[in-house]
């Protein structure tokens, strides 16, 4: 399941809903990305997440489908927020449930690695020197590439 929304989400409620009625699940891996108050040595007041409505949903659905193709997953969840977020706020939740924990872990890491290089979101940070668009990180490309085949 994928969702793109402005509002915050309740991790516990989302994960409960994901697993409800599925008693073959042995492991549930999840990852939450949060707004940090520091980026390198710049202090961040807040950030605004811009996205490409329509393409975002397509990209996330494709990432979800690819995770199902690669691992035996009982459930996949991607929730990504947009709009203005302050430090400590949740940005994204990805989760995978499987009979086996390694599939859950690998699938979950795949989701966030691919999302970071394929889903059309952009971060504008509020810094003491004014607004600043976040640059893509080479480390994110490296992380995504380990899943290429």
């Amino acid at each position, binding site marked *: 399941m994928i969702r793109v929304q402005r509002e915050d989400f309740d991790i516990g409620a989302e994960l409960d809903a994901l697993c409800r009625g599925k008693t073959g699940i042995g492991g549930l891996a999840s990852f939450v990305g949060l707004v940090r108050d520091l980026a390198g040595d710049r202090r961040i007041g807040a950030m605004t997440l811009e996205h*490409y409505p329509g393409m975002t949903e397509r990209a996330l659905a494709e990432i979800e489908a690819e995770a199902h193709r690669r691992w035996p997953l009982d459930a996949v969840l991607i929730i990504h927020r947009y709009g203005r977020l302050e430090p400590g706020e949740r940005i994204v939740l990805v989760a995978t449930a499987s009979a086996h924990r390694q599939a859950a872990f690998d699938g979950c890491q795949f989701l966030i690695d691919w999302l970071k290089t394929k889903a059309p979101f952009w*971060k504008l940070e509020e810094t003491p020197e004014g607004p600043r668009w976040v640059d893509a990180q080479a480390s994110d490309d490296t992380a995504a590439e380990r899943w290429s085949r």
Partner: protein
Amino acid sequence: MKLLYFAWLRAKIGIAEERVDPPAGVATVAALLDWLRTRGPGFAEALKDLKVVRVAVNQEHVGRDHPLRPGDEVALFPPVTGG
């Protein structure tokens, strides 16, 4: 053809969305980028370094040689930074 600009490309070009009718020779993404650069200083500045410009056609990431058709939705944006 519908064009969309995101993040600092939108900020530099100064518009988020427009409808254009490129010249007949503009049949690929690469040709579109070349033509857009001639449309004013904002475009020239935004498209100065094409290494940091990504393109989606009809909401799918595409390469520079991707063919274009009149009804396409073409989006230009920097490398993504979500998650």
